[in-house]
């Protein structure tokens, strides 16, 4: 099956990229080996944003088309997004400890934004759990997902301004790995990690969506069955 192939390719890609990041790429001049975790960290952060963008768009799709499969997409994207967000935070903290000496730095815009992201979408998932009716759940989740997505750029800008007023040493900035003037091997590894992680994300999304869609179909079948047996029973009287 195509998805299984995708899964293998993604796995192979991730293993390769991790090996490259750990052993092949030279350590950063200033940050040393700690910089290596930036590759998966940046990739995870990017995939988190992508996931939550999809959650919002799928939510809009549900409100427009009322197709529960779109809601299943939104749900899958949120779950996987939370996963990548948590990993990104963990990566950020692991990077921070050797570089800053502490696990958390309030002035760092990326870390604080990602933490808020986690809070927003854990809230989204909890909201989903608390509603039983599928359509009501989809509607509530959709609008919460949309507003959360709208909030993200605002959070980003506000934290950027916040950081801007409290200058920290730029050498110790995680942004270095995104600098296009950086040596080619850094950029290459980053792009490779992005590709491998995105393939993994895609694989997980497809699998999770299939699960969700199957559940939607099952519930629908139960409903139709109950409906039809009620009609048949009544007519037979």
């Amino acid at each position, binding site marked *: 099956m195509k998805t299984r192939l995708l899964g293998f390719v993604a796995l192979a890609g991730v293993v390769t990229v991790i090996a490259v990041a750990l052993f092949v790429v030279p350590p950063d001049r200033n940050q040393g080996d700690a910089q290596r975790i930036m590759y998966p960290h940046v990739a995870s952060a990017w995939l988190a944003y992508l996931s939550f963008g999809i959650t919002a768009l799928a939510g809009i799709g549900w409100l427009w088309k009322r197709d529960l499969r779109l809601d299943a997409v939104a749900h899958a994207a949120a779950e996987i997004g939370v996963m990548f967000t948590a990993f990104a935070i963990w990566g950020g903290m692991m990077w921070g400890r050797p570089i800053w000496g502490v696990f958390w730095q309030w002035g760092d815009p990326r870390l604080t934004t990602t933490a808020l992201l986690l809070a927003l979408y854990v809230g989204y998932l*909890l909201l989903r759990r608390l509603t039983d009716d599928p359509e009501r759940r989809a*509607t509530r989740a959709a609008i919460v997902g949309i507003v*959360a997505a709208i909030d993200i750029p605002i959070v980003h800008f506000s934290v950027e301004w916040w950081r801007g*007023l409290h200058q920290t040493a730029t050498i110790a900035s995680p942004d270095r790995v995104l600098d296009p003037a950086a040596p080619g091997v850094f950029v290459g590894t980053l792009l490779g990690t992005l590709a491998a992680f995105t393939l993994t994300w895609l694989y997980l999304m497809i699998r999770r969506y299939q699960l969700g869609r199957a559940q939607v179909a099952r519930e629908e079948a139960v409903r139709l069955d109950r409906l039809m047996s009620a009609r048949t029973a009544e007519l037979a009287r």
Partner: protein
Amino acid sequence: MSTLSAEARIALAIARKDAVAELRGRHATVSTLFFAAVVLLLFGFALGPDAARLAEAAPGLLWLAVVFAGILAVNRLHLLETDDGALEQLALYPVPRRAIYAGKALAGFGVMLLLGLVVLGAVAVLFAVDIGGAWLPLLVTVVLGSAGVAAVGTFYAGVTVRLRAREVMLPLLMLPVLAPLLLGAVKATAAALAGDPFGELGAWLQLLVGFDVIMIIAGAATYGYLLEDG
């Protein structure tokens, strides 16, 4: 079908209805104000008694108290609609949904503004903060901050009004979204009190305005979907 002024009239009617019911009701607005005062007292206990430290923390404490009390306030305004199916009836009127949102958010803004001003006064007294010539920028900050809390709070109160575990879900959903507002309001307050030494007050107020506008539009656009529940 409906003009802007007709919608405004409807929103105002809803806001007025909320205000009248709230004022006559179980005196909840007063309780909310007292809650904010108690929160400030506890801050004093937790962070004091060093007056300099409290004065420095005052902007943050002010807005934390406002936001926490604000959760209670917006929750109450939506609880009004649980009177004998009032929310369902409200949803059945042939009025545009965004007017309903506007009305409830307006009522929320009224309560939040009152709350903000009272807390500002309390903070000035309790934490020895000299307002002096900064009263105008402080007033603007309180107005913009209250509007933001009302816009976001009204929306999420609508989401959670018929939800299980409402008491924890409302703050859980609302607070992360309010983070930029909190940041902007606190920074603007601090800048205003210090006489705006770095010229950053304008930037923070702009953030607040942007936040308010975006959130009001988002709330107005999506609130209607909550009313089709049934």
